[in-house]
């Protein structure tokens, strides 16, 4: 109920963003049922134009592009979602532990993260994928671990502020263990700033996965995420066939939608904490 009230009071841009995000999630969840054709079946000629039977035409092998796009939505959102969850769990727990434990633990973790962050993410992913096969678990692991460095920085900074508060001091004097302090004292208070970062990390994961698949090193055929669909149909663009633009537009639309929602959440949370929003 509270959420509905918030949504009703949200600016139009945020409502639009929420609507789009909900639509994408729904498509991903129901992909199996709403796709008009089997996404792997060849149903017509190569690159057929848009028609009432094939809403977006067919792709480079004559498969229904609409169905592939719907299936690709599921692939993209599931892999990006799992990678985000991994990066958040890993990054925030490590960040909290570093700030609570301090000393050499903090030192070792922070320097390791410094080194990891000094390499551009895409470059390091390419290095690792040159020896590992591009399977879905490997992709999730690579994306999750590399992105957790960004979450670590944020979580550590947030926890540093909380760590010096009286109630944490009290818990420590009571003799609570590190795990209690991390999960029962720090985590509930650090959740709000972390959640507003969640959207941005997720969209970064989507873009990252799309880039990898576009380079042919992400999701492997016959499965395809959005980036893979762009790759499959990119030759058509040179001949004036817009099939490759549809999945690219889906990426752009989701990026904008999540940005709109994230902006709104950021404003909300900073208002809650009594700070000036939208700096």
């Amino acid at each position, binding site marked *: 109920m509270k959420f509905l009230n918030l949504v009703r009071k949200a600016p139009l841009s945020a409502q639009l963003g929420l609507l789009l995000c909900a639509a994408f999630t729904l498509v991903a969840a129901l992909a199996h049922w709403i796709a008009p054709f089997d996404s792997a079946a060849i149903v017509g000629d190569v690159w057929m134009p848009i028609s009432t039977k094939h809403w977006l035409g067919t792709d480079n092998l004559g498969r229904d592009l609409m169905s592939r796009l719907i299936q690709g939505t599921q692939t993209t959102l599931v892999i990006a979602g799992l990678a985000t969850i991994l990066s958040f769990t890993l990054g925030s727990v490590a960040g909290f532990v570093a700030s609570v434990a301090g000393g050499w633990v903090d030192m070792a973790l922070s*320097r390791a993260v*410094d*080194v*990891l962050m*000094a*390499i*551009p993410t*895409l*470059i*390091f992913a*390419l*290095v*690792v*994928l*040159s*020896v*590992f096969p591009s399977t879905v678990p490997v992709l999730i692991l690579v994306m999750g671990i590399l992105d957790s460095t960004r979450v670590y920085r944020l979580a550590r900074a947030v926890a540093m502020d909380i760590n010096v508060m009286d109630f944490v001091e009290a818990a420590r004097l009571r003799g609570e263990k590190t795990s209690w302090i991390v999960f029962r004292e720090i985590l509930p208070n650090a959740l709000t700033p972390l959640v507003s970062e969640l959207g941005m990390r997720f969209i970064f994961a989507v*873009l990252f996965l*799309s*880039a990898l698949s*576009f*380079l*042919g*090193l992400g999701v492997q055929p016959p499965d395809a995420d959005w*980036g893979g669909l*762009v790759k499959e149909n*990119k030759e058509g*663009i*040179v*001949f*004036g066939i*817009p099939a*490759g*633009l549809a999945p*690219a*537009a889906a*990426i*752009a639309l989701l*990026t*904008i939608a999540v*940005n709109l929602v994230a902006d709104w959440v950021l404003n909300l949370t900073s208002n809650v904490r009594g700070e000036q929003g939208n700096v």
Partner: protein
Amino acid sequence: MKANASLVVLVTQRLVLGLLLLLGVSMLIFAGTQLLPGDPAQAILGQSATPEALANMRKELGLNEPAPVRYARWLGHALTGDFGKALSNGQDISTALGKRLNNTLFLAGCAALVAVPLAVFLGLVAARFRNTWVDKTLSTIGLATTALPEFFVAYILIFLLAVKLQWFSSMSIIFEGMTLWERLDAIALPVMVLTLAVMAHMMRMTRAAILNVMQSAYIETAELKGLSEFQVVVRHALPNALAPIVNVVLLNLAYLVVGVIVIEVIFVYPGMGQYMVDHVAKRDVPVVQACGMVFASIYIGLNIVADIVGIVANPRLRHPK
């Protein structure tokens, strides 16, 4: 005198820190390819190789030695510019890399030459006309271009400018013997995409930095003593806003060098990014390591330069409390 000495110390500290970082990165890039118990010898010779051939190949590649020894040897050779030979075609990596690095730097450099002045100029315009429709239009366009993935922008431009209007070529093929003009014509579209990708951030920061300075009391004094607006901005505001602007510009250049990978693949441009991606698919580890090392060095190098410029330009950073 003392201020200068501390400046030298600070800059040296940054440089040493950067070198340590590079060392760490080189370890990571080497270790990243050792995570699997895979065997390059097997990869070169294929599944049907005889055990004797495998043993010979391992000896030749020095695979019988422990990983730290191989790392030390790899790093030592890399420092002298020798990255060994590619597994896939046996060619010397450094020679191939050098040519492609030139192409990549040419593309990224051209994009920077267009993007940086344009972004700073538009940032100044946005600051001058802040909160008017000019400012709002610029910031909306800026937000849109940062939100869109590069390949979406690239294919939209290819579809419109190369296919429909036929103004440019959709592929940026560069070969030896091309005149400079022909080269510039070939890379027009990728330069456009890269410019759009990095411009918004620089523009926003320029605007913010200028507005930040414009609120100072000494700017008001300059205005009150009757200087023209142009003089106030260029003579009084710009020098103090320069440090954050230069910083953002350098960080974006670092981003440019990496962002170039996807763009090179889209436009079939014979640069280092494409070279790296091709060899990842071929599982040619030495080439990938070499490319990764060069990319990371450029990236770290530009970041250090950004730090040092910040220290030199801002006296307050020279005397940390």
